[in-house]
């Protein structure tokens, strides 16, 4: 089996893989980074979104071999080492942007990618950007609200709680 080397969450990572090993499987099985989830097999749900070279990517639709030499960032590296939540994570907690938590890592990673490109998105832009992230619990209300809040916008006029 060939070996793949990449940088994951700032640290060198390597492992033996098959050609068919997906990036998400490498992260979950080889590296034990189980925060990245798999919720579908047709590249739609977005529970597996990670950042590769700073861009949001579905880790279930990229082979581990394709990430050779690249920088990968997962949900496990979003909070500060001392446990302080990233502002997006904090906003999700503050605004109840998660329930079962399964889609949440992908949502946070997508939201981070959005705010990097568009620091103050409109509601419509947030909703549009989340096209590839499915959530079955929240009806999206508090996810959209949390992302707007994380961007520093006033969400007090949006329906309470």
């Amino acid at each position, binding site marked *: 089996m060939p070996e793949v080397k990449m940088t994951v969450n700032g640290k060198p990572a390597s492992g033996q893989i098959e050609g068919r090993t997906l990036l998400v499987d490498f992260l979950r099985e080889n590296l034990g980074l189980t925060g990245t989830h798999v919720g579908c097999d047709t*590249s739609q749900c977005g529970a597996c979104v990670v950042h590769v070279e700073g861009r949001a990517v579905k880790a279930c639709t990229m082979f581990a071999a394709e990430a050779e030499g690249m920088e990968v960032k997962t949900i496990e590296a979003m909070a500060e080492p001392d446990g302080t939540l990233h502002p997006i994570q904090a906003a999700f907690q503050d605004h109840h942007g998660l329930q079962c938590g399964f889609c949440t890592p992908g949502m946070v990673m*997508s939201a981070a990618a959005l705010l990097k490109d568009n620091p103050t998105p409109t509601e419509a832009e947030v909703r549009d950007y989340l096209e590839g992230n499915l959530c079955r619990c929240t009806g999206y209300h508090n996810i959209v609200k949390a992302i707007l809040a994380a961007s520093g916008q006033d969400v007090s006029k949006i329906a309470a709680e």
Partner: protein
Amino acid sequence: MYAFDIERPTRLTDAVKLLSDATDSQPLGGGQTLIPALKARLAAPERLVCLSAVDEIKGICTADDGALCIGGGTCHADVAAGAGAYPALASLAANIGDPAVRNRGTIGGSLANNDPSSCYPAAVLGSGATVVTTNRKIAADDFFEGMFTTSLEEGEIITEVRFPVPEKANYQKFEQPASRFALVGVFVAKYADGVRVAVTGASEDGVFRWSEAEAALSSDFSAGAVEGLSLSGDGMISDMHGSGDYRAHLVGVLTRRAVAAAG
């Protein structure tokens, strides 16, 4: 997925060599369609030749004749951001799939796959673009040969797509509610020598030009010019998301909207 080897060449010539040797190989663009198909075990290549490290087929530039040239390995997000010279094309790219898909999926991969509901074929056919491969240059009208079928030969890689930039253009996509692919998509482009109208998502034969609308719009580029025109539902895709008649109806609606939006 069935087992396969994966190669990740960095030079186009190496990719071509790998694709033409004795091993049953398949090129892998961004993989946003191929990888789900592999997961469903719908394909069983011995080897995937991954093109994502071949930098020479990525990027956007303007040719001497004014055409916008997009490398076959350019991802949708980069086209959306970098094809400002052709706003209708940039906008089309910005609405393919979702942001994560756009960061991986490539124009070359999309065209080679020729999904009957994908967006790029409408832009390529609607612009009369030229598909440049490792072997030759193929006119858009000769490239698409029906659902999931193109004139590409085994091992041939799309290196570039050259889009003549129109005076006006617009793409209207009506999304299939589940996949968000085009239930119907219509690309209208007005050039000095006439108007092209390309329709994706609708026909069982894949992307096609609506010649009747082209003729009408070439003499009068206004939504009113196509008001009375209609297509038959025969030969249109009919599924749980819409009948052939519905798709035919949408082609008319979207064509008028595209013309109106093109201004």
